[in-house]
């Protein structure tokens, strides 16, 4: 097809360089070129959020961004959020509060939630529900997802208060 482009990405702290077509979507570059399979494809129309990653500090649905648009960007996926021996508090909280079932939406859900709590460190339940509305879950009915996120917010805030 068309000429390939030289793409540089920093994903989860690691530099990658590869060739891609201008039409290649970020999600497929991550999943199929870099074997980062945490982000999933659920809808192709940026409704479901299973493909959510963080691009230069913003939540992005990677099924609706060309990898060329992300050239030079810093990207964080679920794989970069915590490590097996040092899980992110949200990863712990989703397990603690049964905030996941089949696990397909979970990487996007947790990735989005990390940004939500950066955008608003002390959200109300309504703000969590609104802030997570771009991520669809078919299994949990959201109640325990909301609970997982609010629990982390409250934990972080009490830790902050204690530190002051």
């Amino acid at each position, binding site marked *: 097809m068309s000429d390939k482009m030289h793409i540089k990405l920093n994903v989860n702290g690691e530099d990658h360089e590869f060739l891609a077509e201008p039409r290649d979507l970020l999600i497929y570059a991550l999943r199929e070129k870099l074997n980062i399979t945490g982000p999933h494809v659920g809808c192709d129309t940026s409704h479901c959020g299973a493909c959510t990653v963080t691009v230069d500090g913003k939540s992005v649905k990677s099924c609706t961004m060309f990898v060329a648009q992300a050239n030079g960007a810093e990207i964080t996926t679920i794989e970069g959020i915590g490590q097996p021996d040092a899980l992110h508090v949200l990863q712990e909280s989703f*397990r603690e509060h049964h905030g996941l079932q089949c696990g397909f939406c979970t990487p996007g859900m947790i990735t989005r939630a990390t940004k939500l709590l950066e955008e608003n460190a002390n959200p109300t339940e309504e703000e969590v529900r*609104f802030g997570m509305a771009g991520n669809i879950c078919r*299994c949990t009915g959201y109640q325990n997802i909301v609970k997982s996120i609010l629990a982390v917010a409250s934990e972080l805030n009490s830790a902050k208060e204690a530190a002051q």
Partner: protein
Amino acid sequence: MNDLTPDREERSAGLKGLGCSRKRVEDARFTQGKGNYVDDVKLPGMLHGDFVRSPYAHARVVSVNKDAALALDGVVAVLTAEDLAPLNLHWMPTLAGDKQMVLADGKVLFQGQEVAFVVARDRYVAADAVELVEVEYEELPVITDPFESLKSDVVLREDLAGQTEGPHGPRKHHNHIFTWEQGDETATNQVLDGAEVVATESMYYHRTHPCPLETCGSVASMDKVNGKLTLWGTFQAPHVVRTVASLLSGIEEHNIRVISPDIGGGFGNKVGVYPGYVCSIVASIVTGQPVKWVEDRMENLMSTAFARDYWMTGKIAATKEGKITGLHCHVTADHGGFDACADPTKFPAGFMNICTGSYDIPVAYLGVDGVYTNKAPGGVSYRCSFRVTEAVYFIERMIEVLAIELNMDAAELRRINFIKKEQFPYQSALGWEYDSGDYHTAWDKALKTVDYEGLRKEQADRVEAFKRGETRKLMGVGLSFFTEIVGAGPVKNCDILGMGMFDSCEIRIHPTGSAVARLGTISQGQGHATTFAQILASEIGLSADSITIEEGDTDTAPYGLGTYGSRSTPVAGAAAAMAGRKIRAKAQMIAAYLLEVHDDDVEFDVDRFAVKGAPERFKTMKDIAYAAYNQAIPGLEPGLEAVSYYDPPNMTYPFGAYVCVMDIDVDTGVPEIRRFYALDDCGTRINPMIIEGQVHGGLTEALAVALGQEISYDKMGNVKTGTLMDFFLPTAWEVPNYETDYTVTPSPHHPIGAKGVGESPHVGGVPCFSNAVQDAFRAFGLRHTNMPHDHWRIWQTANDLGLHE
């Protein structure tokens, strides 16, 4: 002895067995993005398949020209029906006894039907090549209405022309599939004729789709060197897929390995066998390379497994006091272009004959006519046991309509007709034996918790305020009481393609006292790795944390019929308990030998066998496991393992009582769910945390279906709801918090008394949400209006009732 009691409790808690809200073992992988779903499978040299699909709902396929596609760099093959015909794979059997085209054989019967399969180097090239395949169609008249279909001269299934007998009996018309009748129609009609009160209503349960977040897909890898086929796929029943793949391909079953990896939700969508699976296998055989096929969301919604689409007419007879005396139900079932319903063979309309619900109805009749139309095939059980959602919606609407007819409170009408506790096991008029229930207790608890009388008072006040012009919001109180029927078998009644619906568990205890257990089911998010270990922990006295559960690999797991219709806990869960008891029986003999007493002189105590009357003399299950491998015990083989194939004696009948309180803005049609209370009785509770999660999820899928989710077609057979832009999946913003509650009425025939819960909330939830909407308008004369109650339709209802004047 008292000092032993806390010790026993402590030991028991340490097992994390039945009743423990154990955290899920699956979550470590899933929260770190380390799940392994089918699209994550990547093999060396793997090719990608993609379908050319029909833009027409009914057309002849005049010609398919592959030349331009094959000329594209990276395209390896383009398969059509002509290529599959020599292998006899251009058609495949459906689970309903019909057959379905794998690739269009001369004509297409629905929009999105598979016409050609392109195999290419990567997904982009495959998609390009799909555009280059030139298909010439000749349009035919389109029928999207089953009633019109039964009158039409147009023959949809020309391959069946002249066949007056189908797999389920006589066909009345060339577009008719079957008539299925249960109960006594003559006696029912006599009751209706002589009844003091008869309420009649027609309702349409719209077509929808299970739409799990992960779509369907497969990766086939034919190893021509050793003759073995490995097939990864989104299969809710991997063993059945292996058998079907063997029968279709001629490859011996031991040379086929089917793997269901992690599945991103199923809800019935992944029970059937789809053309994509077959094409990926054929393409791998043809090319000698692994071939992946994963459908996109639009393909998923257009072609794989719709649910519902039942046109139901009911007549319910009662005395003036409200005692129901008879029920008549007729269904015209739209099955689309092929009958690909996923039901046990003898039940072409699933368990629709549970439609007498939770009520003691002496006489009843059910007739179902299946009909072909130019819509996608399917008819799967979307988060329910075979058509139970339709049945429960039907009876719970008929109860409401009868309450209106009698000018009676709908909660009271239910109460006076419930099957009484002492009537169980209860023989229903349509042939089922309900195993256990205590409906009155559950109902009273529910109504008391929500202050039902207070709600009715508030609602009446609201109506008055509305009439005085003080508010534009009406209030609805939605009620539903449901009885599910789950856990198919027994084998004598239930089979899928001839395979009896038993299930299985094999357990192997390791010398150090940990274990691996494999089952014939497959989790799609239900948490089997967590809960089956809990069942086993309580049975064999080893901690659940020491028991690994494996499912979904046919090379290692014992044969089972898979996970759907809430059958995992009722059937495979029972197999797990029975396998555990076999382990325990051998462990008892080993313990007796080690303790130098007779087998009958030791007894099981949580995690050990102890000498009767001398609890300080004991051997723990860990001691026993070790001894099984390092001692020569006279009369016993070494090792400690067991397998159980469990054929359930009956199905289980979970039930529940739901109440929804809703405010409806008459001018915008927007419903606001103020409160939702769900009481579920699923018998013995294995993991309360997981039960609650299942209830939240099922209720949310119920909310979706009741309030907006549908697959709709225009007159030309175009799918109008093919993406998530049009197909309603609720987000966190639209979904309320739910209150969950329970009673416990164990199943008398299940080894641990469990009944299954995954689907109850969907089954009970849909009528509850719908009843809430409709109840809001009862005071203004509404009797029935069809789902889905989206904002526009609710506004329309208000408008039709003159509430905007």
